[in-house]
């Protein structure tokens, strides 16, 4: 315990702004403990893959692989997007609960906090992607060269950052635990529109509308190694939505910092 007079210089500051593995472990455990998170982000996308990836045309050729590989990549994106969005929504919820204020009374720096949340979203996104890919391996229908397989998985993971930002944004707009009620169906809708669940005929009116929705661009980007095709409008779509969601999240967050 402290002596009657304390010399403040004897106290140390933790490294990395307080970021450490204990926090990451507890946070990960916490997310996996949430049954809804596990079902919607890990079980559901794999189930969708089994449902959509075994159509009659599963072995038709697509770029460097087949239709099953195409569907698998899409479902992995959907699952990872959901985990990232729910991770983002948690940031807003934690602020509403006063937890971020509590953390401000510890050495954890705000930058380290956001970094930690991004890291968690990446880890869980990776888990979601791995689950769908393992489902694909187990089913043995998807076929593409290993390096294409890996490239798709990594690109998918990076693309999910768009939805982490969306999660933060929606988390602020829809406070409390209802954010996922909006994000779940919303992302499903975006996935339908974004060519993730069902292929839309290129050039149709539907396709033109779809090409403006937020899942469309990232879906094209994450499947690019497989299809061997990366249209410019898909890249523009992905970048524009990322900027919009990050700006929205930053805007709501800055409104909220009046009394941390």
């Amino acid at each position, binding site marked *: *315990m*402290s002596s009657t*007079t*304390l010399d*403040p210089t004897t106290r140390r500051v933790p490294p990395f702004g307080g970021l450490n593995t204990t926090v990451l472990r507890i946070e990960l455990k916490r997310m996996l403990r949430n049954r809804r998170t596990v079902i919607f982000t890990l079980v559901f996308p794999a189930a969708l893959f089994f449902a959509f990836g075994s159509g009659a045309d599963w072995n038709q050729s697509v770029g460097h692989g087949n239709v099953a590989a195409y569907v698998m990549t899409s479902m992995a994106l959907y699952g990872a997007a959901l985990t990232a969005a729910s991770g983002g929504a948690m940031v807003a919820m934690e602020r509403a609960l006063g937890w971020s204020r509590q953390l401000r*009374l*510890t050495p954890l720096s705000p930058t380290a906090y956001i970094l930690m949340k991004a890291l968690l979203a990446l880890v869980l996104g990776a888990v979601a992607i791995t689950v769908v890919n393992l489902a694909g391996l187990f089913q043995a229908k998807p076929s593409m060269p290993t390096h294409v397989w890996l490239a798709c998985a990594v690109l998918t993971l990076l693309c999910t950052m768009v939805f982490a930002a969306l999660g933060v944004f929606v988390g602020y707009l829809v406070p409390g635990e209802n954010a996922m009620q909006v994000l779940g169906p919303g992302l499903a809708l975006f996935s339908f529109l974004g060519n993730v669940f069902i292929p839309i005929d290129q050039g149709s009116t539907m396709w033109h509308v779809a090409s403006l929705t937020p899942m469309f661009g990232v879906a094209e980007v994450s499947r690019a190694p497989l299809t061997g095709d990366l249209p410019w409008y898909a890249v523009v779509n992905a970048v524009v939505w990322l900027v919009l969601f990050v700006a929205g999240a930053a805007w709501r967050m800055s409104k909220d910092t009046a009394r941390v």
Partner: protein
Amino acid sequence: MTSPRVPAISLGDLTKTFGDVHAVRGIDLQIEQGEIVAFLGPNGAGKTTTIDMLLGLSRPTTGSLEVLGLAPRQAISRGLVSAVMQTGGLLKDLTVRETVEYTASLFADTQPVDAVLAHAGITGLADRRVGKCSGGEQQRLRFAMALLSDPALLLLDEPTTGMDVEGRRAFWSAIRRDAEKGRTVLFATHYLEEADQYADRIVLMRRGRIVADGTGSQIKALAAGRTVRATLDDPDHQALARLDGVDSVEVRGDTVLLHARDTDTVARYLLTQTGAHDLEITARGIEEAFLTLTGDADETAQTAETGTRTPEGALR
């Protein structure tokens, strides 16, 4: 100890403005290590705003502020300052132990998690989800989290709200024990009784200013005095107010109420110089004393309060 004695808190002409609202209007305050100080005042007096600045949660508009000779954020990074919040600040889906472990991992040096759980009396709850704990249990958990880093300065905002008498007593005896080891404690309260009973020193705030600073008995003496009540036809308000030691004059129909430090002079004047009759002298209670010091004598002054202001309701 040979180390230089750094004050626990040092504020110089500190102000905080939110738009048009002047929450803190220039306060100077020095608190030495080991003191237990009560921040007393009605809601909206500026107590919480000042505590927020001490914790680095908001920045002063002007003035200087040092905590143990450091900027608040630096002091917090070193685990020198901690606080117990009134509500919130907990994740419902973590267990009690996870919450303490989580918090502990963020500091460079902490006390062992088990020891802190035991000290706060929540070892038995370690594996329970925070959301399933009662309000009192959650408060003990917040307290455990605040003590993890063995802080030199502990800030408490209305710490015993919602506690029963027994809990309140246990809480304060624990605080006392820690203070004997050199920990400085600053707590905000709107209970004069609590401030008087547990603090070595009371800093009284009103409308963003420090209006009194001293021991409990000094504060009470400041507001001491008695009330003279008499029936008087056509009272001369001005003349009464000019009397020596009269703090305030109130006229209700043909009844006058005079608050004064020297009621004998007032009584003598009333009975000899005026036609006053049915004279009564009563002592003011502690609550009245508090209201005198924190009350709104100047109704035209701009209100600094952002929330509702009901000191009467808060007093027990």
